[in-house]
């Protein structure tokens, strides 16, 4: 069952909250993760998507993990929140798009789910079945 707190939180809120909890000011944090202060403010303000193919810092995700000293659960939460923020901004991560491209059955499953208008609760049951089958 998905954690409701995760659904309520978004990436920009997560990023700012974790930084503020650790009392790292904006300029210092920006320097730690090799981006400009204004780019960091754009991310925390939800003005900009997480850059998937950043030329300035291709290791941005890992740099954030290290700078905030995120544990494995927080790391996974941040990854999920980034994906959700990209989807809500009509962008899909390369991981998901690559999987869909090479797995026609997954594409078909999504189409059937859309036609049947599956709810979040219906998907929770499917996810449970997937986790049991692993």
């Amino acid at each position, binding site marked *: 069952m998905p954690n409701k707190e995760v659904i309520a939180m978004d990436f920009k809120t997560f990023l700012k909250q974790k930084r503020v909890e650790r009392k790292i000011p*904006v300029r210092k944090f920006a320097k730690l993760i090799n981006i400009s202060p*204004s780019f960091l*403010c*754009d991310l925390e*303000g939800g003005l*900009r998507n997480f850059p998937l193919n950043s030329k300035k810092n291709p290791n941005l995700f890992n740099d954030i993990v290290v700078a905030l000293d995120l544990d494995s659960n927080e790391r996974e939460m941040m990854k999920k929140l980034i994906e959700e923020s990209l989807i809500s901004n009509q962008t899909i991560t390369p991981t998901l798009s690559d999987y869909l491209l090479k797995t026609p059955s997954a594409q078909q499953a999504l189409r059937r789910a859309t036609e049947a208008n599956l709810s979040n609760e219906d998907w929770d049951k499917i996810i449970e079945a997937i986790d049991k089958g692993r």
Partner: protein
Amino acid sequence: MPVSIKYSSFSKEKVPIIKDKQIEKFVNDLLLDYDPNYFETPHSLDIDSFIEFYLKINLTYHVLSSNDDKNKILGITALTGGKVPIFDEDIDYIVLNKGDICVDDRACKNEHLLRFTLAHEAGHSMMHVNCSFKLSYANDYSNSINYGEPKKLKTVSDWIDHHANVYAACLLMPEKFIKELFLKFYDPNAKMKKAMLNHTVSEISGILNVSPKAVAIRLNRLKLLNDVS
């Protein structure tokens, strides 16, 4: 944060009349509330953490002027709040709430100017937000930052910039630190007075992480240079 500043009178434009000494006391009280041991040893203030985590002012960084603007905006404080045009790539504006500050770190040519601009904007946020004079934003250009040097004050902007400059000078260069460091480094018996003064200013500038010009103006305002020709 229990420390606040009280206004006893206002100009006809409704700008609060605040004396420099009043601002000095206000800032000293803030620093003691921030850290009861603050004045033990002269040191530079972590202005970024002070603004964000003690004053709890919402501080962001954005590009505030276009490439074509010769006179760049260094910082802005929202006195009432609303949309502010910015020039970040692909983003046209941000929304600032009352008291929020935004600084253009790229327009501030060096760390000293950036630190003073941060302190200056914090001054506006602390002193000018709940006032009745008609100004929605304090837009600060390079000529707004003058380290508290006396100048003719005519407009509402002149007055509030003066308040903010005095606030910033007191915050980054508290009187106690300046006097202590001046006594430590300045040798009144030195034959080459100018060289001795330059050395003193340079040492204080390094310890407090402010520009030599800011130190020189502060020393002058505190009348420490009266015996120095």
